């Protein structure tokens, strides 16, 4: 039986890296969005530039599920190298679309095979090799539009928008699209069982990747200095900042930039520059991934101890070491939360999607200045490098940048006493001055060595300890400033809870629905920051057991919860996924259902009604 589904299926493109398929695949995904149906693409790519396989997976879901689903309903198999595996991975009853210039034999009998002689068609239509390659991609989008019921006007409008600046390219692209569409309408069994039907489920949402959103958020957050070193999957964040600075921070009259972006020699230099710039009163950030975080450790301790603002975007990838550099994980939680030697606790934010990447990016600069400490924004490859439907960006023009406690020359002249590390307000945060502020007052020496309230070097143990205690007080203050966790209870309330964070959100949302359908109720708490808000401990305390769902091997957030909240480990049940693919609702719901069903045999509840 062949699959039948409307607005609920997964299409996977198997391509050769560097074949120009990316923009055609994006066109495909966007055309579905333009029909008002949520679609979530994911790039799956190995760590190389050209010639090796890449996949692009599009989950079409009218219900709005944006987590990875697993499995493929329609495989667009454009890569001979991965052919066998690709064909094997199709769900029973699914579809295979392929280039039948060389017809395949002995294919699975439980799938529908849709062959189209793409190479032949291209060779006949085009003489230039590059054109043949590029238009082949557009031609298959044309064919898919016919097979899946995607409206041709939608695709043609998108093409016109895409080539607005190079108008000459519109007509040939539209022609290629029609070539594929017409061929399919004539020769293939259109429509197939998988169909896209127009809906109105996208609303005003925007479609963008998390790295771009964070780069943009940094512009809105007032960052002027970016120092970075290229590393997948964070590179596009710095590049986005560059792009948006060019657009929004170029002086109209002089052409000069209100920003400074440096590709540093390594991550040590990146974070060093960020610290130097922040010390001097500019908002500065770096973007990196796990290996960069490892390199930055010494500096991160300096910034923590000397109390210098810094924003670090860590777009996580599978570690340890080089690990799987193009695969996703949430594996740097501990490395960031306790970054550097000695007793440290760092601020960490966990955005769930591009919207929060923007929000948290902008907010992180306020937090760093307010708390005078490094702030980590933990993205991962899944949200960083994939476009995702998310709430539109918003900005309140009345909002001002919070520069924190900075004393000006006037403040110093007014006779207000200045002690760089003096806790005058009782919140653990002391006042600072920018270099060059006043001819005779307010200067101090910044150092990573112990010092007293007046920044004077000291090895007096009591003074050292007083300072370390104040840093804890400051961390306590931070709880009120960082994004609060988001709690969502089951309608009737539940005995079990689940804690999750970052890119796990869409899979968790879907899993909860699946579990509810099976009669398992679950309360949810999405952690958005470290230090943990008291709400989180209250949530744990009010449930029999709490699942902690995360994408790493060692249950890092769970460890942090136990450690920081003195929580009995038995109360927190691990749900882990760390093979480098994005976590799925299926995995989460299966793991949780198994645990709960097993527990039902030995009931936790005292009396069963």
């Amino acid at each position, binding site marked *: 039986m062949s699959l039948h589904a409307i607005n609920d299926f997964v299409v996977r493109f198997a391509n050769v890296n560097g074949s120009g398929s990316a923009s055609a695949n994006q066109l495909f995904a966007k055309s579905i*969005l333009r029909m008002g149906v949520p679609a979530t693409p994911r790039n799956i790519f190995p760590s190389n530039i050209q010639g090796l396989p890449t996949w692009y997976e599009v989950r079409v879901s009218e219900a709005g599920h944006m987590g990875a689903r697993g499995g493929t309903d329609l495989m667009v198999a454009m890569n001979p190298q991965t052919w066998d595996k690709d064909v094997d991975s199709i769900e029973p009853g699914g579809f295979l679309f392929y280039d039948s210039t060389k017809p395949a034999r002995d294919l699975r009998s439980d799938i529908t095979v849709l062959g189209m002689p793409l190479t032949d068609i291209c060779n006949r239509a085009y003489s230039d090799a590059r054109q043949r390659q590029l238009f082949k991609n557009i031609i298959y989008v044309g064919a898919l539009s016919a097979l899946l019921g995607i409206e041709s006007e939608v695709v043609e409008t998108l093409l016109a928008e895409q080539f607005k600046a190079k108008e000459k390219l519109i007509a040939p692209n539209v022609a290629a699209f029609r070539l594929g569409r017409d061929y399919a309408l004539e020769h293939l069994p259109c429509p197939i069982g998988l169909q896209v039907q127009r809906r109105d489920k*996208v609303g*005003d949402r*925007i479609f963008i990747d998390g790295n771009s959103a964070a780069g943009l958020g940094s512009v*809105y957050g*007032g960052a*002027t*200095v970016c*120092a970075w070193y290229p590393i997948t999957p964070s590179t596009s964040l710095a590049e986005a900042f560059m792009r948006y600075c060019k657009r929004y921070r170029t002086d109209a009259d*002089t*052409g*000069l*930039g*209100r*920003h*400074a972006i*440096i590709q*540093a*020699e390594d991550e040590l*230099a*990146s974070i*060093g*520059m*960020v*610290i*130097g*710039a*922040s*010390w*001097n*009163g*500019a908002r*500065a950030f770096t973007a990196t991934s796990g290996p960069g975080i490892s390199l930055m450790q*010494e*500096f991160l301790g*300096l910034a923590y101890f000397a109390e210098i603002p810094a924003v670090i975007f860590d777009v996580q990838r599978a570690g340890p070491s080089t690990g799987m550099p193009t695969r996703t994980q949430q594996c740097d939680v501990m490395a960031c939360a306790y970054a550097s030697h000695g007793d440290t606790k760092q601020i960490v934010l966990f955005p769930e999607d591009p919207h929060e990447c923007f929000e948290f990016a902008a907010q992180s600069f306020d937090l760093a200045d307010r708390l005078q400490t490094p702030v980590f924004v933990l993205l991962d490859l899944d949200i960083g490098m994939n476009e995702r439907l998310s709430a*539109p*960006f*918003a*900005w*309140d023009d009345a909002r*001002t*940048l919070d520069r924190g406690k900075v004393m000006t020359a006037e403040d110093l002249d007014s006779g207000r006493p200045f*002690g760089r590390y003096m806790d005058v307000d009782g919140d653990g945060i002391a006042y600072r*001055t*920018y*270099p*060059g502020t006043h*001819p*005779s007052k307010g*200067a*101090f*020496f*910044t*150092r990573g*060595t112990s010092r007293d309230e*007046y*920044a*004077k*070097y000291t090895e007096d143990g009591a003074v050292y300890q007083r300072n370390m205690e104040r840093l804890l007080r400051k961390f306590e203050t931070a709880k009120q400033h960082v994004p609060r966790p988001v709690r969502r209870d089951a309608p009737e309330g539940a005995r079990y809870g689940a804690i999750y964070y970052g890119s796990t959100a869409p899979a968790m949302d879907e899993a909860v629905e699946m579990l509810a359908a099976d009669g398992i109720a679950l309360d949810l708490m999405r952690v958005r920051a470290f230090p943990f808000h008291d709400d989180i401990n209250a949530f744990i305390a009010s449930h029999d057991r709490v699942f902690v769902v995360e994408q790493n091997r060692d249950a890092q957030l769970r460890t942090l919860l136990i450690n920081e909240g003195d929580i009995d480990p038995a109360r927190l049940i691990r749900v882990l996924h760390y093979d480098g693919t994005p976590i799925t609702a299926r995995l989460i719901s299966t793991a949780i259902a198994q645990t709960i069903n097993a527990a039902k045999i030995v009931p936790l509840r005292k009396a069963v009604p």
Partner: protein
Amino acid sequence: MTFLAKPKLHHPSAPTNALGLTRRDYEGAISTLCAGCGHDSISAAIIHAVYELGLPPHRIAKLSGIGCSSKTPTYFLGTAHGFNSVHGRMPSVLTGANLANRDLIYLGVSGDGDSASIGLGQFAHAMRRGVNMVYIVENNGVYGLTKGQFSATSDRGSKNKKGGENVDSAIDLAAMAMQIGATFVGRSFSGDKAQLVPLIKAALNHKGAAFIDCISPCVQFNNHVGSTKSFDYVREHNEAVNMLDFLPDRREITADYAPGTVEVVKQHDGSLLKLRKIHQEYDPHDRVSALGYLQQHTAAGEIVTGLLYVDPDAQDLHDHMQTVSTPLNALDDAALIPGSAALAKLNAALR
């Protein structure tokens, strides 16, 4: 001012500079280095130079790494902000600070361990970027603070205190700086104030990456017979290629000189470098020939000092990056935030 240990009693007749400040106003806390340490002489030379130039001390940012040498910023310019960062990473911190506010003067102080060993990479990259700064390495050929291990500027064959011989070849930071893009390079000796002070003054008035390799004997661990960084050894082998006078402006050129013996170089800011040639063939504007000279004479066992290279019209990192003239740390919200209208437009383009 939180650390000035010295009494600030001015002698009523103490001379003042153009800003009406006395020499004392340029001092810092009392040094805790070993008595006789070369580094203290360099601090004194910095104080002297900044005082005579009449620069407001609080407009200078002092940055350093870790080491005895890197401690010295506490001992001069007490009203200036200082930053004792981490070992070998001062150049990146200074670069970042410079990006944030191009209007301050940046003075980086480092050691040979700090810059030639752990920090060689950052040293090199700050030079090649043309960060507008004065970068002084207080070069004693050892790790003073960790008690006398050889550093990467230690000459091959040089002996440590216990008689052990250094078998690795030395890094010449001045030559390296020249090669990779510093636009002002000098070498001097902590014991030669007459040479060092004008070099520091000229460097402070140079736009771009100015580097001074200052040999600065460690009396504790590297001042014995067999060391090539001892006071005696450096005095014996010091070969200055020129003598520099720094003149804030043209009016100060008074004397006439025999043709060919003196060259006057005008720097970007209008200040003048009066160079009295000692070695006629040495041309501090020709990077290639200067490097050749340096290598030849170093091979012959000479310590070549003086103004080794200068490009008076150099550009700095901000020029390269085309940043606005307003310091980035002084831009207000309106200059930084594109606002909700721009965002609405962007949202529309993302649908």
